[in-house]
């Protein structure tokens, strides 16, 4: 029987030769456990799709649509040097409040976690951070949980007595993550993080790919700081030079991200950056290639 990873790569390559060329190099850029982990993920993900009367081919359609949208946005970005969005409210109305668009987008994003080497590496970095902190987490919060994969990974690593909360501004994302995570241990809340009032202060907060979605990332980090215990930890990921249908704030390099972190009153305890293209860093920097950045922060 053909493995799921092989089927997905073959199907994508038949429909998008250019991206197929990139996927051909995927296995040379990831760790030795990748294939096993990817198969386990794709098997679980396919069960989730079937439960929702959908197929792997539907998910591949969503992934290809996401790539098409990113290509279009990237062409405009190369020409103008700016993201096409400048207002969070516009994106909120057009993307997060559009169930059909948002659900398709989330399927594209969750597949990307195992098809883009940089996203896979960031996920593995997250897992290692969670493992290192497992004895210090009782109250766990994820802000902008999206498809729910990160919280799902935390659930599989942490002790059974942890309280989990996931907030997201998009109802479609909450429906998606609730169905994907499929655990009674998680409380799901529809909220803008700026309006989220909680009596609980959290030991650990995850906020993956959210900073680039707001107009003022310093204010966002300051709001998150209010939700964290004094000795709590915040795990963030974000991207540089990565145009997308819902990206608002443009980080041009990792230095700009670090400046925002420090301005908001956080210290960086650990970090990882991964270029999206397999090329020398000097060349990637010169060409404004997108970089994924992740960091563990403390107050």
């Amino acid at each position, binding site marked *: 029987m053909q493995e799921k990873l092989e089927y997905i790569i073959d199907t994508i390559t038949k429909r998008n030769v250019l991206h197929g*060329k*990139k996927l051909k190099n995927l296995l040379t850029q990831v760790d030795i456990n990748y294939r096993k982990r990817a198969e386990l993920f794709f098997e679980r993900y396919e069960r989730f799709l079937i439960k929702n009367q959908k197929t792997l081919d539907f998910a591949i359609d969503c992934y290809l649509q996401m790539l098409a949208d990113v*290509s279009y946005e990237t*062409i405009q970005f190369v020409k103008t040097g700016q993201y096409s969005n400048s207002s969070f409210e516009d994106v909120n109305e057009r993307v997060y409040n559009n169930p059909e668009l948002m659900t398709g987008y989330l399927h594209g994003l969750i597949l990307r976690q195992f098809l883009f080497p940089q996203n896979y590496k960031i996920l593995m970095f997250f897992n290692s951070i969670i493992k290192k902190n497992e004895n210090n987490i009782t109250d766990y919060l994820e802000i902008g949980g999206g498809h729910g994969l990160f919280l799902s990974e935390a659930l599989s690593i942490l002790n059974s007595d942890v309280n989990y909360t996931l907030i997201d501004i998009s109802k479609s994302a909450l429906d998606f993550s609730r169905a994907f995570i499929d655990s009674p241990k998680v409380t799901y809340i529809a909220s803008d993080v700026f309006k989220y009032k909680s009596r609980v202060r959290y030991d650990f907060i995850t906020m993956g790919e959210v900073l680039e979605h707001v107009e003022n990332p310093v204010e966002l980090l300051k709001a998150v700081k209010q939700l964290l215990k004094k000795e709590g930890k915040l795990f963030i990921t974000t991207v540089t030079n990565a145009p997308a249908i819902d990206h608002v704030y443009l980080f041009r390099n990792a230095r700009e991200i670090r400046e925002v972190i420090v301005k908001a009153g956080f210290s960086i305890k650990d970090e990882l950056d991964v270029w999206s293209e397999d090329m020398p860093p000097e060349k990637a920097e010169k060409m404004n290639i997108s970089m994924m950045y992740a960091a563990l922060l403390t107050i």
Partner: protein
Amino acid sequence: MDKSNIIIEVSKIFNEVLDRDDIVLNESTTANDIEEWDSLAHIHLVVAIERYFKIRFTSKEIQSWDNLGELVDSIQKKL
């Protein structure tokens, strides 16, 4: 501009963007025929073509081309 002239101009753009001097395109050329034509190069090719011909492709068009002939058709429709 007729198709053959568009292909000549697009060939020049391919050679410049992909840093080669030996690319000769025809209507059936695909990304499989040119090693350097990958997703990143594609972005820069489209930008260069749009600038040269002073046109703008839609998101749908950019993903729809299976070969160079289809790209040339899209250009021709906009001139």
